């Protein structure tokens, strides 16, 4: 893989040049947290953070997104007809995205890009974006990406991976899109032969700092109905307040709602992030609700990520190990512990005995 050498002194000027052909987005500080936002001309992304509070999924899949526009004015010839909402799909680069968040786009694509149907909003936005990632030298205590098929130096989903090497970045150029971005930024200096070895050293050091190891090896062979009926769900769900924080922060949760919103006679058909934590998510018109109880909803979230998805796509778990849900859950529900319970569950065994 081609590695280019970027002096940190060339970083800001390179971004300014790239800004001529790309809309630039990156992490910025907002109070005690970091969030992805559009960078003003001359603004550099903040790279001294561990991770943003919200994942990067909203860059391609906004929390609230116009699908169609309409008028209900009977005097208009196109009244009651839905018209495509105008969107900006011009080239956009996201700087400083963490490898786990980039990997999540690959995972979520399995939902939005299927043989039968393609979600045009997600696909066009994904196509328009170039991901310039930043390798994690100092993962958090809640990170478990290496157990989730990702890693602090993973290049999955990325176009460029930046590795901080003191006074400079070593940039692995992963795709032609990444090549085009480097060109636009004027970063042309190929790194010397020692770069690959240096990246590898940094990678090993970063992976060694990840202390959480979550076993997932038995999830596939587990029986769905036995797991579904396992006695530990009441314990897992006991403290849950169904706030939905986990699903909103998660880079791999993709569920949405569709709503019409009318002001006067003009309106939009929107889609909004939704959450399996909410009773309304599954409420039938009749009043019947197949997941009306909290424990059913908590079980759904973990079963979907750690069993249904595993069986359906044969591509690991529906999680990249970013740890956001662990860090931000107000009642300390930890997906790593639940995964361990599910992975080690046996019908005959005492489920309490297998958790340390």
């Amino acid at each position: 893989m081609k590695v280019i050498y970027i002096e940190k002194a060339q970083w800001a000027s390179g971004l300014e040049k790239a800004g001529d052909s790309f809309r630039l987005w990156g992490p910025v500080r907002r109070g005690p947290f970091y969030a992805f936002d559009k960078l003003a001309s001359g603004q550099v992304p903040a790279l001294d953070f561990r991770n943003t509070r919200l994942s990067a999924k909203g860059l391609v899949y906004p929390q609230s997104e116009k699908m169609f526009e309409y008028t209900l004015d009977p005097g208009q010839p196109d009244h009651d007809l839905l018209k495509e909402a105008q969107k900006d799909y011009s080239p956009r680069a996201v700087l400083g995205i963490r490898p786990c968040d980039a990997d999540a786009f690959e995972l979520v694509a399995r939902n939005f890009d299927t043989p039968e149907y393609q979600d045009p909003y997600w696909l066009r936005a994904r196509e328009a974006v170039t991901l310039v990632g930043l390798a994690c030298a100092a993962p958090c205590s809640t990170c478990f990406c290496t157990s989730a098929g990702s890693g602090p130096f993973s290049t999955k989903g990325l176009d460029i991976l930046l590795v901080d090497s003191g006074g400079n970045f070593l940039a692995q150029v992963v795709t032609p899109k990444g090549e085009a971005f480097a060109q636009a930024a004027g970063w042309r200096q190929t790194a010397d032969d020692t770069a690959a070895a240096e990246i590898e050293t940094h990678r090993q050091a970063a992976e060694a700092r990840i202390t959480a190891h979550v076993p997932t090896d038995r999830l596939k062979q587990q029986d769905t109905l036995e797991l579904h009926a396992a006695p530990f769900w009441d314990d897992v769900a006991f403290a849950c307040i169904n706030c939905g924080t986990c699903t909103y922060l998660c880079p791999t949760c993709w569920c949405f709602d569709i709503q019409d919103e009318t002001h006067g006679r003009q309106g939009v058909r929107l889609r909004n992030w939704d959450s399996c934590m909410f009773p309304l998510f599954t409420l039938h018109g009749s009043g019947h609700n197949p997941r009306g109880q909290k424990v059913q909803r908590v079980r759904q979230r973990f079963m979907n990520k750690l069993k249904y998805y595993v069986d359906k796509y044969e591509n690991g778990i529906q999680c990249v190990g970013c740890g956001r849900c662990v860090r931000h859950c107000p009642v300390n529900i930890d997906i790593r512990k639940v995964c361990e319970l599910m992975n080690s569950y046996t019908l005959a065994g005492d489920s309490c005995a297998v958790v340390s």
Partner: protein
Amino acid sequence: MQNPYLPYAVRIEDIITETEDKNLKTFKLAFENPADEEKFVYAAGQFAELSVTGKGEIPIGIASSPTEKGFVMFTVNKVGLVSSHLHTMQPGDLMGIRGPLGNSYPWELLEGRNVVIIGGGFAFTTLRASIVYMLDLANRSRFGEIHVIYGARSPGMLLYRDELAAWEARDDIHMHITVDATDDPDWKYNVGFVPTITEKKAPQADAETYAIICGPPIMIKFTQPVLDNLGYGHDHIIMSLENRMKCGIGMCGRCNIGRHFVCKDGPVFTLAQLNGIPKEY
């Protein structure tokens, strides 16, 4: 790229109030654009999203048969925001439909076989489509014996009453219409719940006989043991499920039962399939 969320424009041609409580209306819809009608190729058992601009969408089984040309038909129970608004709409009004969605009943498998249709209440819509489809002149010879057990609370709550009467008069379909109770002295059909009538009237199971069952959960719960007693294998019992839906194309995430989406992988499942899936429907 085709946008799967964009409905076809349709105009309401006719509205029929089906039941005495006036809560069920049938909407006959005609495509505004003939090219859309050509794209809307469906089979009995599939559903569509009915779109009312400014209100939203609802997933409804297609009640017309693909053999009926020039329109599509939906029978809608008045329940929520969209369906209530739909009930106030008039012939000539413009709305949208998106689909066809989901899988139909397994017509290739059913070819040459006997079919027992068991329905209750207002879940008779895609069953009506199936009956019309099988009774079509070009299709009737492709199927064996056809039995229909259909029940409602009272005679006035039966859907498609004129058609039921016409089918009763035919000798190539065995109709077993029933109501839970009635004080109508002229009622000439069965009285009793669907499971009871199934026990009395459904043919014994054999490898060549399939049951299609669609109805409220309570009816299904008590009909299934009857079919078990009659010897129906669970791979010979075909069911159509419903769950809350939005996208209808397997993306919005809410209608799943285990790893399957009711919208995209269903709504038609065999009981054998459902036995291995969490019962979250």
